[in-house]
């Protein structure tokens, strides 16, 4: 069990050589569709009088590209892909892996960089054209309508929302002044939960008319004009007993 954060260096010790290959998008898409053990094709290396040629041949079954809708192949991907070999000189590239459990391991060093290029063919050109057409379609489209839209913004005698609101208001009635002691109790319990309250919120909580509530508040609380808690009411120091404050009731 490796420590958290420890980089396992076995790959580096073994000097495992790896290739870093840049693969076109469509090809990686096809590879993701591979079945079984994941065989996608064959790699062919030809050493020819001091020159090396590498090429990749895509498997037959993966060559057909289905459109997004799952329709059968309109175009087929090219099968031959010569690799363009590049040097790895300017950088030292290593490969490290991360397992989901936060385990890190150094797998190896990149000894060869390559670019997988499709062999230029009719097939490929068609494929490319399709891709370009798709990507050039605008995301948003302006569409002309035959008839004008009449379903929204109809003039209404009184909006539904308004009707509900007025009904609610009628039913609740005006806020009545409750007993002062009750109001004080409500306030104290509210201030136990939070230290600073906006007057609107207090009106909501206590359901008292504003003027009456303000009078009571002036008795037991103070109004913060400046500071981080702007325009908020809080209890007077002598009424507070929050944790961490020395002064108490």
């Amino acid at each position, binding site marked *: 069990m490796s420590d958290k954060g420890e980089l396992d260096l076995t790959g580096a010790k073994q000097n495992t050589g790896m290739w870093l290959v840049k693969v076109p998008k469509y090809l990686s898409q096809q590879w993701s569709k591979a079945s079984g053990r994941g065989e996608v094709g064959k790699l062919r290396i030809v050493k020819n009088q*001091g020159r090396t040629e590498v090429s990749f041949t895509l498997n037959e079954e993966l060559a057909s590209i289905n459109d997004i809708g799952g329709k059968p192949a309109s175009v087929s991907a090219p099968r031959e892909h010569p690799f363009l070999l590049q040097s790895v000189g300017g950088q030292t590239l290593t490969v490290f892996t991360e397992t989901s459990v936060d385990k890190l391991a150094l797998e190896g060093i990149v000894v060869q960089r390559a670019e997988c290029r499709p062999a230029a063919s009719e097939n490929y050109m068609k494929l490319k054209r399709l891709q370009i057409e798709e990507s050039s379609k605008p995301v948003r489209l302006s569409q002309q309508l035959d008839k004008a839209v009449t379903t929204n913004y109809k003039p209404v005698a009184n909006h539904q929302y308004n009707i509900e609101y007025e009904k609610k208001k009628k039913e609740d009635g005006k806020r009545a002044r409750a007993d002062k002691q009750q109001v004080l109790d409500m306030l104290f319990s509210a201030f136990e939960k*939070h230290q*600073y309250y906006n007057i609107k919120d207090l009106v909501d909580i206590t359901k008292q008319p504003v003027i009456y509530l303000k009078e009571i508040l002036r008795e037991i609380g103070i109004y913060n004009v400046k500071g981080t808690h702007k325009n908020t009411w809080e209890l007077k120091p002598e009424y507070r007993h929050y944790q961490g404050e020395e002064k108490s009731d």
Partner: protein
Amino acid sequence: MVTHRQTWRSRGVACRGAVSGHVPLISGGSRGRRRIPPEPDLGVRPTLTPVMAALGSSSQVVTEYVVRVPKNTPKRYNIMAFNSADRVTLSTWAQARMERDMSNKRIYAEEELPESGAGSEFHRKLREEARRKKYGIVLKEFRAEDQPWLLRVNGKTGRKFRGVKKGGVTENASYYVFTQCPDGAFEAFPVRNWYNFTPLARHRTLTAEEAEEEWERRNKVLNHFSIMQQRRLRDQDEEEEDKDKGRKAPGKGGGLRIHDLEEDLELSSEESEGSEAEGEKAARPKAAGGRPRKKKRKGRKGSEDEALEDSDDGDFEGQEVDYMSDGSSSGEEETGKAKAPKEEEEGPKGIDEASESSEESEEEKAEEKEEEEEGKATPTPQEKKKKRESSDESQTSEESDIDSETSSALFMAKKKTPPKRERRASGSSSRGGSRPGTPTDSGGTGGTLRAAAARLEQGRRAAPGGSEPPPQKRLKTEPGPPSGKSTPQPHSGKSTPSSGEVQLTEEAVRRYLSRKPMTTKDLLKKFQTKRTGLSSDATVNALAQLLKRLDPERKLIADKMHFFLKE
């Protein structure tokens, strides 16, 4: 435009599609082939597999391998890229540790307000959210996935690297890592992320402020090695001091008073070392200490290399050196204190450690407690300042002998006065420091220091009182030990540089005595020889005569005879 095309034609290079009809596609392939070194070692080992087939003519060797793209691997593959100029050799790596660099987390963390109970607001989160929506502020969330990596190779003393994620890697094409399996087939894994790793410097670097300073002096400084050398020396000294102080601090807590006086009288360098240790707080975070120290350092350096200060020699003549720290510091506010330490940090602590340590005085210890109260950031400069200020007159001669120190001394002296004043503000110590280079006011040293120490204790006792240090101190100290400074202390402090001459006149004495009661020593301090231009004997005589003439009232305050005049 036209010329350009002509050049192309003259070169005989075919422009792509611009000139002729059918243009051979200058494919990357052909170019690439030219660049490949012959026979690259592909790291590919041909093995026997049924798929492999060796075909081709005599000069060709053809091998084929199956390529597999495994699905559902638990591992996620990433690229760690190093610049080859950094000479990273994996063979030298014995062990390595890597973790995410979470230092940006606090930037993303929102302001923490308690959710409920004290300090919380009703619906604060809702309101914040509504506000953000209204203004269209979009907060970027902190994703651990995107944070850089910190790689440590070969333990604490090895190399360190920082790996930053490279963007846009998987946008248009995908990278795959091809590894060869024991069975000869290739397995291709997609690369999720690409991190560029750069080495972190282990050597000392200058901070931004220091770098700016150096930049300004780039035309004057020829020896660039000295820049870092000096910095290193300074840091070393500070570290030593820190260590010493840490050791001594716990030991001397109770017996401070006694020690103060002894230290004061002895003024030995050995003692000073020890007291120095005490003075500095070991607990101080090094960073906080380091930065003010650095500032001090650079200031000191600056003074050495060129004359930064504009002040002339005579500017400090009239400054009041209230070496006898009377408790009258009451008058000062504490506000300036925070500023002052910063200022003085800017000022070069030109006097080098040796002389400073030798000046180490009881002030260090006395101030120590005060320092703690003031705040951690300021202690070092304060300590140093105090050390310097407490630079006993006897040491001034030593200092003046040090060549390199003279200019820095002046500079420092200049800076010292504001902090000196501020320190008084802090309350516990009303001790003014003497400037280096002040001619020794040795006459009153012993007694003054003793009195100063006594007052310090008083002041310190007052300070832990806590809630009302300034007013309390003011009340205590004003009727209490006399101080050369009366309520218009800021004035007096500030006026000292300007009022270069204070004549020993009856008027002046009357003024002082009518303000508050003072002892003879205080009065003497007021009329320092430097300022009045008289010798100390002459001052004493003149003062005595004036007092006889004035015949002030006498009052015994704190076992000392105080004079004062009733209006």
